[in-house]
């Protein structure tokens, strides 16, 4: 590895040498504040011989692939500059590719460096990456220096401020935990504004004092110089803070305060810097009082203006992503472009670019994330992280490299030492003072340990360096000394403090971040507390934080979200979003490890017939065969016989559906089985499956939100309650539905007849029951929900009845049912650890399984229900009946069925509870009847019942599945 890195160094060195020349050539003069020679081609031609003169490099070049072209390039470019020759068969077009080539090489170097660092786990845990990168930079710089006798390359401020910094800030802003940030906004602002001012002034004045005392400096250095230096050296640097703190994992509050400060102090730094520069330019003697006020006004404009620019771009971005449905592919681009434009625009008006970008990120995140597709989200996330990580790497490497060149800086021990001392002392004092003040208002005070960490975490970094490099030597006479001091300060904070902060955190026992996502339970209660606190603030007539946040949330809900969120997303709650995400992820993971789930967890179920044989059997089909269930045979048939497709599919569907009704693990098994059987086509199937998921989710989105959600959630809840009944026999629920059932049921038909104008409501309801309904209108899956509902409402107007094949096609209907199924599972699985969750659900299943009786008692009601619903149902019912028959024929091995009753109860319960919601619910009720009518048969033969439920597309698949989650 050492050899490798050595090789790397050498490569880099040669890169760097060419780089030097490039920076000279390619960067516009105004960016070129560093000491890189402004002459372009002469430099190159002058430079290359020197390079050749160094044997080591030349050797390396012959060995190293990338190096070879670069030297050749250098040659040819000089050649080009000299006018070129005749026709060559092979030409080195270095001048043509040089800029991108060098950028690419640098990125490569940075990435490879990262890889190397992470080879040794033990090493990386002890030493922060930023330290290593700086060291690497130092080594590279030294190599270059030795090679070329001079170091014309530096961290270029233009490059830094226009490209490197935005990537980091953009990433930080976009992924900023908004709630945490705003909860601590007061403290953050305090530290960012007051703290930075305090640091800047104290450091500046004290350095000046030391100078007056004669300890440091030369006569020429004025007060303004020191104040300027104090301003640029006092700002905590976001890059360094991120780099160090991300590895330390302190608790979120501490992190957000330090990090937020480092971002928000940009405005202060920018203004102070600009003001002092102008003061230095005009000379301290020409500064009038008005200028100070101008400075203050400028601060307000820079900070507020920057924030506003950011927010405006956030709105634009959110608004644009609202309409990208057809062009999903460029969604990420919009995000990057607009966030970056926010930065550039602020820079354009010399506002605080960091503030602008940060607030753009924070502001747009919520809406953009909701608007763009899942894939785009992933893309944005990874691209941002990649860019930020690379930018960070480059920054630190370049910091190291630029430190090497002795010609750029001049050493003054007194200045360096006193600066270091002042920085540390004033940071600590400032933090202590501000925290003391803040703790008056903070509910959770910042402890001593936090203060120590905050003082110690006040890292200086590349921003300070870039700013000091930007200074004009003509005006700031002490520039070279300041550069040296800044380099030392940056190195000290990043390397020494960065190295020691981890042990310090351990030693002080600073609370670490748990890295655990709050459970939904916690989230709910947090919400509840927010509401409670808001209510109390309202009662007490206080317009406090909670009051305003509540106001903002209302505003956001009523106006902003309507404006910025896609219609389909607008009504989707965050929780629902999360649910959906989890659903998709778990569905995928279930499929991925379908076989495993089957063999491990599921097999241990007591209810499984021949569990014992399982462990050895990884192949589902084999397993099934051994168990001798009809299911297995069916599957085999399907596998082997390619003809008679429809029937087979039908059978498969029945098999699947039948399994769906069984205890949960059965479910999963069914899933995995399904996918296992497909074998080679697994991939394709997965895609199909995912698409189904998406279709389904899309249909969710498109349905009207509120009612739908209400219904759904209510049903879910009811469902869960109903399930509970089985085990715990709660009286409450029973009573409720029993009381109201009779009333409700009769109303259903009425609803159907009279309410054709309420498709929306039906839609809403339908969501939960997609699977069930899908079968009714099996034609196209995506639309099935609404279509099915339409059918329900007005049977007369039922869409042209699908062909028999279509109707019975397992896939047509199955699609509806499958995805829900998965989603159900997903919900169960929610505790992220799949296996664990699985076990849990299994245990719950077992408990459920014990009382098989429940169905019977409830039966009467069910049947009445079905009777009532029956007539209306007729058209569809017939079809479903057919389906049932076919189903029953195919396989009966599926097992006992406990669900139907529970399901009915649930629905009724919901109905009774929410009379006004009844109409929508009715539609959902509708489906059940067919199965119910057959209940008698079912009771006799559970399998049949199952089948019918399933096959009767409407009632079967969907209901139980949708219920399933409730069971949780």
């Amino acid at each position, binding site marked *: 590895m050492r050899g490798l890195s050595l090789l790397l160094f050498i490569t880099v060195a040669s890169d760097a040498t060419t780089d030097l020349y490039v920076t000279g050539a390619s960067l516009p003069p105004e960016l070129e504040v560093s000491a890189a020679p402004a002459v372009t081609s002469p430099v190159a031609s002058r430079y290359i011989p020197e390079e050749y003169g160094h044997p080591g490099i030349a050797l390396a070049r012959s060995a190293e692939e990338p190096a070879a072209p670069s030297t050749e390039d250098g040659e040819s470019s000089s050649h080009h500059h000299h006018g070129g020759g005749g026709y060559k068969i092979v030409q080195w077009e270095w001048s043509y590719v040089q800029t991108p080539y060098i950028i690419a090489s640098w990125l490569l170097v940075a990435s490879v460096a990262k890889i190397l660092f992470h080879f040794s786990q033990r090493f990386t845990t002890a030493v922060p990456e930023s330290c290593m990168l700086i060291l690497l930079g130092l080594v590279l710089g030294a190599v270059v220096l030795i090679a070329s006798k001079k170091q014309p390359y530096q961290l270029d401020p233009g490059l830094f401020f226009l490209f490197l910094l935005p990537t980091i800030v953009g990433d930080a802003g976009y992924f900023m935990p908004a709630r945490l940030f705003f909860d601590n906004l007061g403290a953050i602002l305090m530290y960012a504004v007051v703290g930075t001012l305090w640091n800047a002034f104290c450091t500046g004045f004290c350095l000046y004092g030391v100078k007056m005392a004669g300890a440091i400096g030369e006569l020429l250095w004025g007060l303004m110089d020191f104040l300027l230096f104090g301003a640029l050296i006092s700002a905590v640097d976001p890059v360094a803070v991120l780099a160090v703190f991300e590895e330390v994992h302190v608790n979120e509050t501490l992190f957000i305060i330090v990090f937020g400060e480092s971002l928000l102090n940009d405005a202060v730094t920018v203004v102070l810097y600009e003001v002092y520069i102008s003061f230095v330019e005009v000379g301290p003697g020409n500064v009038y009082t008005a200028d100070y006020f101008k400075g203050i006004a400028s601060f307000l404009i820079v900070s507020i203006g920057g924030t506003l620019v950011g927010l405006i771009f956030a709105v634009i971005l959110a608004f644009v992503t609202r309409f990208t449905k057809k062009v999903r592919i460029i969604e990420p681009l919009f995000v990057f472009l607009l966030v970056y434009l926010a930065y550039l625009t602020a820079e354009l008006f010399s506002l605080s670019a960091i503030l602008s970008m940060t607030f753009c990120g924070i502001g747009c995140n919520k809406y953009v994330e909701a608007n763009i597709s899942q894939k785009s989200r992933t893309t944005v996330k990874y691209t941002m992280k990649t860019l930020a990580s690379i930018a960070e790497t480059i920054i630190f490497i370049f910091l190291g490299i630029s430190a090497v060149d002795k010609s750029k800086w001049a050493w003054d021990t007194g200045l360096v030492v006193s600066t270091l001392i002042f920085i540390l002392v004033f940071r600590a004092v400032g933090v202590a003072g501000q925290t003391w003040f803040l703790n008056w208002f903070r509910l959770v005070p910042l402890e001593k340990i936090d203060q120590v960490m905050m003082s110690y975490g006040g890292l200086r970094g590349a921003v300070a360096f870039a700013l000091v490099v930007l200074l004009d030597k003509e005006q700031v006479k002490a520039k070279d000394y300041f550069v040296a001091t800044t380099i030392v300060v940056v190195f000290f904070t990043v390397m020494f403090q960065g190295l020691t902060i981890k042990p310090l955190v351990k030693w002080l026992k600073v609370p670490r971040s748990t890295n655990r996502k709050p459970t939904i339970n916690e989230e709910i209660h947090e919400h*509840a507390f927010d509401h409670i606190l808001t209510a*109390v603030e309202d009662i007490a007539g206080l317009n406090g934080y909670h009051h305003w946040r509540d106001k903002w949330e209302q505003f956001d809900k009523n106006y902003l979200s309507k404006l910025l969120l896609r219609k389909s997303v607008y009504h989707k709650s965050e929780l629902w979003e999360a649910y959906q995400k989890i659903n998709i992820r778990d569905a995928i993971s279930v499929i991925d490890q379908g076989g495993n789930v089957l063999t491990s967890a599921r097999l241990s179920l007591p209810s499984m017939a021949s569990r014992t044989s399982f462990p050895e059997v990884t192949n589902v089909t084999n397993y099934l065969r051994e168990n001798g269930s009809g299911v297995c045979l069916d599957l085999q048939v399907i596998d082997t016989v390619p003809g008679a497709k429809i029937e087979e599919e039908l059978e498969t569907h029945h098999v699947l559906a039948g399994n769906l009704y069984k205890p949960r693990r059965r479910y999963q098994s069914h899933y995995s089985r399904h996918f296992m059987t497909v074998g080679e086509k697994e991939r394709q199937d997965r895609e199909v499956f995912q698409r189904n998921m998406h279709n389904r989710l899309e249909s969710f989105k498109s349905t009207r939100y509120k009612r739908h959600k209400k219904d759904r959630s209510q049903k879910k*809840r009811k469902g869960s309650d109903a399930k509970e009944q089985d085990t715990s026999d709660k009286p409450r629920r029973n009573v409720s539905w029993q009381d109201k059932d009779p009333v409700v049921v009769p109303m259903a038909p009425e609803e159907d007849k009279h309410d054709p104008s309420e498709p929306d409501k039906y839609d809403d309801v339908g969501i939960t029951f997609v699977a069930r309904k899908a079968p009714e209108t099996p034609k196209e899956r995506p639309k099935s929900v609404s279509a099915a509902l339409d059918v329900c409402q007005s049977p007369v107007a039922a869409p042209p009845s699908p062909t028999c094949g279509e109707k019975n096609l397992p896939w047509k209907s199955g699609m509806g049912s499958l995805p829900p199924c998965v989603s159900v599972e997903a919900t169960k699985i929610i505790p992220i650890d799949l296996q664990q969750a699985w076990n849990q659900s299994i245990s719950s299943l077992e408990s459920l399984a014990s009382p098989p009786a429940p169905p019977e008692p409830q039966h009467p009601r069910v049947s009445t229900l079905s009777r009532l619903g029956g007539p209306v149902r007729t058209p569809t019912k017939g079809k479903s009946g057919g389906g049932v028959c076919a189903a029953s024929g195919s396989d009966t091995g599926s097992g006992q069925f406990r669900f139907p009753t529970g399901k009915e109860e649930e629905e009724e319960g919901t109905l009774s509870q929410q009379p006004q919601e009844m109409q929508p619910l009715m539609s959902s009720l509708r489906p059940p009847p067919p199965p119910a009518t057959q209940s008698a048969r079912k009771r006799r033969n559970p399998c049949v019942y199952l089948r019918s439920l399933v096959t009767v597309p409407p009632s079967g698949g969907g209901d139980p599945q949708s219920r399933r989650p409730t*069971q949780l």
Partner: protein
Amino acid sequence: MGSRASSLLREEDIEEIKKQTGFSHSQITRLYSRFHSLDKGENGALSREDFQRIPELAINPLGDRIINAFFPEGEDQVNFRGFMRTLAHFRPVEDNEKNKDPTSGEPLNSRTNKLFFAFQLYDLDRDDKISRDELLQVLEKVDVEQKMSIRFLH
């Protein structure tokens, strides 16, 4: 109005409330003026309707629950003392033991009392137990969207 309200409050009352709740003098007078402005009936006590007149509370999903917390069992009026006692639960916890007066017992803003208060918010029928239904009822009020999450809970 504030001045008039505070003038109606006698010094000894203030002292007593201060001792009981830990609010400062200025906080008490301020809250009293708020109390008074809420008291549309001008009878020195708030009814549920008075609370429900607060516009922000109307849209608060847990508003009713909070309002209920102000009323002791079986009563539908709350006087200023009761008002303050309830509010005192929301004062930050004071950890310094020296302020603790052994005679006054545990302050209203102690952790235990806070917890008890929170518990009572859930305990609708005040039987000192939170039943599953009660929990669900609180939770479903939190937000519509939260309702669906209930199935995650168990």
